[in-house]
């Protein structure tokens, strides 16, 4: 939105910075404290000397490995399915488009346990599709595949929404130009649309991976909980809480560190701001 004129004007007025109302600063401080305090409390609560033992226990290592082994494929599936889905929802017009879009967003707002219940209704052994699959000897419940499905189900909307918002704001004139110059639809998609989508794809991937990594309710309801097969980090943390709260705290730290690492890798590096091109 900012024009060159705006920018020069703001530069001229720099000494007279508008600033922020004191109330806003105070509330912002409160908000920051609210966010940061639990993490500080976690660090204070950890028995650092026990940490190596707690984190290298076989159940903890199994849980971490399983979490990565499921969240990564789930994220890849979300990319492969989410990009076309977002594209179709944003750029085509078909009857029931609004309804489809609403349904895609439903996993965002329902409790994950509900997601697990409806997945069971569909793919569980006596479920709608599960019964047919079962007849072919395919049993999804209680397998690692069920974990990936649960994670994909709850995190796909994150991919679709972040892509859709970029598709919506970037317009289509570059694509139209490319096609008027004779580029095929596929070539236009690969050389124009995808590069333009990059920021959305990155934030979508981060959100998707983070959501998949943190997935709990749908997994425990649909996939079950067995060490090395379906018991991911969140399930392990919840179970450890029963008998060994210290271990739960230590594992929480690991999950938080992984999350911070993912966010850092995705955001804290120079990326070209393609947004301004479109606006």
């Amino acid at each position, binding site marked *: 939105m900012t024009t060159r004129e705006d920018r020069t004007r703001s530069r001229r007025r720099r000494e007279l910075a508008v600033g922020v109302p004191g109330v806003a600063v105070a509330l912002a401080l409160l908000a920051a404290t609210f966010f940061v305090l639990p993490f500080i409390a976690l660090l204070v609560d950890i028995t650092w000397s026990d940490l190596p033992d707690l984190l290298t226990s076989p159940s903890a290592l199994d849980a971490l490995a399983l979490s990565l082994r499921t969240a990564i494929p789930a994220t890849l599936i979300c990319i492969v399915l989410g990009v076309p889905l977002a594209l179709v929802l944003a750029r085509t017009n078909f009857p029931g488009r609004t309804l489809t879009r609403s349904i895609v967003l439903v996993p965002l707002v329902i409790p*994950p346990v509900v997601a697990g219940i409806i997945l069971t209704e569909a793919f569980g052994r006596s479920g709608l599709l599960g019964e047919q699959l079962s007849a072919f000897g395919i049993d999804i419940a209680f397998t690692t595949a069920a974990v990936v499905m649960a994670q994909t189900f709850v995190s796909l909307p994150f991919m679709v929404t972040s892509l859709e918002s970029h598709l919506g704001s970037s317009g289509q004139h570059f694509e139209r130009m490319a096609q008027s110059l004779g580029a095929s639809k596929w070539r236009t998609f690969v050389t124009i649309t995808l590069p333009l989508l990059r920021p959305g794809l990155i934030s979508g991937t981060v959100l998707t991976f983070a959501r998949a990594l943190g997935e709990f309710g749908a997994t425990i309801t649909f996939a079950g909980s067995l060490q090395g097969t379906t018991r991911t980090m969140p399930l392990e943390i919840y179970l450890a809480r*029963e008998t060994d709260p210290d271990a739960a705290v230590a594992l929480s730290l690991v999950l938080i560190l992984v999350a911070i690492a993912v966010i850092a890798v995705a955001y804290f590096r120079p990326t070209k701001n393609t947004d301004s091109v479109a606006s």
Partner: protein
Amino acid sequence: MRHRFATLLTVTALVLTGCSGATGGGNADSARDRSLTVFAAASLQQAFDDMSEGFTAEHPRISIEFNYAGSSTLLQNLESGAPADILATADEATMEMAQQAGLIDRPTRELFAANTLVGIVPDDNPANIATLEDANANGVNLVVCASQVPCGALAQSVADATGTTLNPVSEEQQVSDVLGKVRSGQADAGLVYATDAALASDEVSTFELEGAQDQPNNYPIAQTANSSDREAAAAFIEYVQSDAGQAVLQDLGFAAPQDPDDS
């Protein structure tokens, strides 16, 4: 457009974080003079709800608020200072921990009921199961509680007593999760408490586990160390042990408490 999505994401985050289990809010009746807060194991919900009527009839001036949750969750709540007058857990180990932590008033501790472990199968019993051995066979989806929670520890020890190594497809956090997976037909068999099986008797069939009778799971009850109304708390514990209280428990499938051989 983007604003709308941002809002949606925020709302989502709020919803996601707000989805964990709710605690039963009580009916704080200011007209009553005294109120009693009872922290009880989730498996006691039906029994204590049923008993509260009879108790209030006998003690009209005392109103009771119940908080039902997993025994170890209750213990953690007490440790972090939640106000309660009575603690009733589903196993003696958790009560022992509460006692070690000085959270309960030791002389008031009593055993008031017992539960045994049984096997359950979906009503149509697709895998044709009648014994633990059948349920434990390869290819059978057996679901048990994780050994970190009381029902799982009991399952482990019942299996150990018969020289069986459990071979489950899933180890759940709570009995209700085991029940849910058998009810929905996801699992072929599950190990749960007799009382849970009784509550779901229209959807699941029960089979006996060899040796389970010898390993009852005793339910202890005690006043908390910082109970604000010891008299009312004592009255409730007395009622639970009375004929009326015991009758309610028996109706729901609980047995009388038994002293285990060791300990």
